[in-house]
């Protein structure tokens, strides 16, 4: 019963993961067999954090990925709760229809999202600057300026993913007993107080789960960068998934690419552990 799944995941996930760790200590070209690898200790790690162009590019990509991930999570979580409340409430009809519209964007291939948004962002022929003009805001450079390109990709990512997290938030909301709100109303708590002292604390576990998934999803962003910006302008959208693939596959520097992948994995473990520790402390308060 277990053999097929365990064998497949073992061979195609766990073995490659261990190989990535092993290769990060090796000098190895991706075009040669693993047996050609030669041990170099911590050289790869020294190089990717060093002062050369390899180090500069990696550190930029790591920082860009951190900013991109943080912004995605910071935008997605509050929006998912707000939208979840809109779907869950019973005062105004149309909640289920709203859920359908929101969730449908999650089904759209990222490549199509990237293509469509590159047109929406187009400075002259795109509708976004036209709409901004209507409310008196001047044209924005969006993807063409190093100052706004990464944020522009965050926006399209949030647009695509927020529906999924809205459904997660709704799942959390359905778990909160209605009797708590009734009791609070009797005690004279207004809507804002109910949200602050009932909804938010009881959504903590849901939000933790959402945050972890949002982080894992965010570091996987690839298509908009590979297709539209190629990491530019001036490296401002060079993120790790794109950079690791460019170094490890296209330039065939397998050892260096693996060291970068190990750093990504470590960063994720640190982030997720910190999140769990934070929520555990809140819980015990």
């Amino acid at each position: 019963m277990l053999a097929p799944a365990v064998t497949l995941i073992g061979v195609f996930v766990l073995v490659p993961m261990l190989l990535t760790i092993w290769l990060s200590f090796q000098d190895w070209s991706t075009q040669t067999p693993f047996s050609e690898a030669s041990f170099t200790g911590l050289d790869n790690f020294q190089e990717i954090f060093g002062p050369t162009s390899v180090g500069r590019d990696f550190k930029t990509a790591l920082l860009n990925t951190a900013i991109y991930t943080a912004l995605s999570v910071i935008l997605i979580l509050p929006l998912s709760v707000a939208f979840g409340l809109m779907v869950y409430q019973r005062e105004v009809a149309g909640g289920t229809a709203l859920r359908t519209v929101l969730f449908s964007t999650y089904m759209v291939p990222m490549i199509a999202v990237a293509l469509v948004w590159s047109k929406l962002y187009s400075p002259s022929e795109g509708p976004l600057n036209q709409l901004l003009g209507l409310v008196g805001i001047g044209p924005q450079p969006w993807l063409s300026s190093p100052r706004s390109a990464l944020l522009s990709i965050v926006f399209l990512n949030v647009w695509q993913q927020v529906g999924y997290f809205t459904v997660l938030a709704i799942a959390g909301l359905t778990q909160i007993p209605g009797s708590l709100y009734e009791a609070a109303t009797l005690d004279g708590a207004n809507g804002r107080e109910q949200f602050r002292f009932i909804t938010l604390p009881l959504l903590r576990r849901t939000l933790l789960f959402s945050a972890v998934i949002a982080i894992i999803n965010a570091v996987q962003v690839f298509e908009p960068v590979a297709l539209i910006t190629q990491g530019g302008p001036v490296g401002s959208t060079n993120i790790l998934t794109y950079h690791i693939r460019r170094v490890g596959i296209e330039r065939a520097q397998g050892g260096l690419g693996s060291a970068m992948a190990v750093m990504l994995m470590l960063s994720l473990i640190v982030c997720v552990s910190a999140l769990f520790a934070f929520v555990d402390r809140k819980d015990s308060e």
Partner: protein
Amino acid sequence: MSAATRSLSRKRLSGRNALLATAMLLVAVASAFPLAWMVLSSLKTPAETMQVPPVWLPHTPTLEAYGKVAGVINLGRSMWNSLVIATVTTAGILVTSMMAGYAFAKYSFPGRSLLFSLLIATMFLPPIVTLIPLYRMVGSMGLSASLAGIIVPNLANAFGIFLMRQFIAGVPDDLIDAARMDGASELLILFKIVAPSVAPAIAALALFAFVYHWNSYLWPLTVLQGNADAYPIVISLSRLLSYNRGAVNTGLVMAGATLAVLPPLILFVFLQRFFVDSIVGSAIKG
């Protein structure tokens, strides 16, 4: 409460509701707008797509761009490749996930929870972490630049095992024991007795897997090494864009994107209940 205050509070309530309804409408419009723009642009003439300020509604909607897509990429072949990749991968995931999910839910053996945790941990591993060695491994298995190379590494996944275990755990043991008494084999029990009682979860997993692998881009791009015969539609789309750079034709790109979006979106619209129920179910039980 006097009549006056009652009508005042009702007015305040309905004012709040009007605000809420407006907000909901705005969110829905913002969410639907990019896809609407995509479809509208695919129906414009090349001149209309380049106009400044932009044209919202095409004056004379034309399907010309869709015809051109088939001239630039091998549309039938790409759609077929996507269908094969998504269908075969989904079938594999269903079988492996049901078997493993059944074992984790209904068998007890030493190291069960350790093995389960180890498998589930891989759910949180971004694919880029294993991409470089996996690329080499699949190459040395002789599977690179082929559909098999895209499919084989994805025939089992942790999410499927997790989802199946969650739902199969709810199937009564008596049902399984009764079948065992009758001498039914374990595989027969799984597919004839357990599977029908978790059918909605199986449907949800099938839909998730199909959409995920229809949309998947990074791994096919890496493993195919430019073999255009095996390109799924999502990768063929990028060729529309590079074609586009010479002679600007936004309509062409938008028509291609529309075609790629349609199959997962249609599946979702008709079967969204399963998607939502399974997310809610796995989140609550998990």
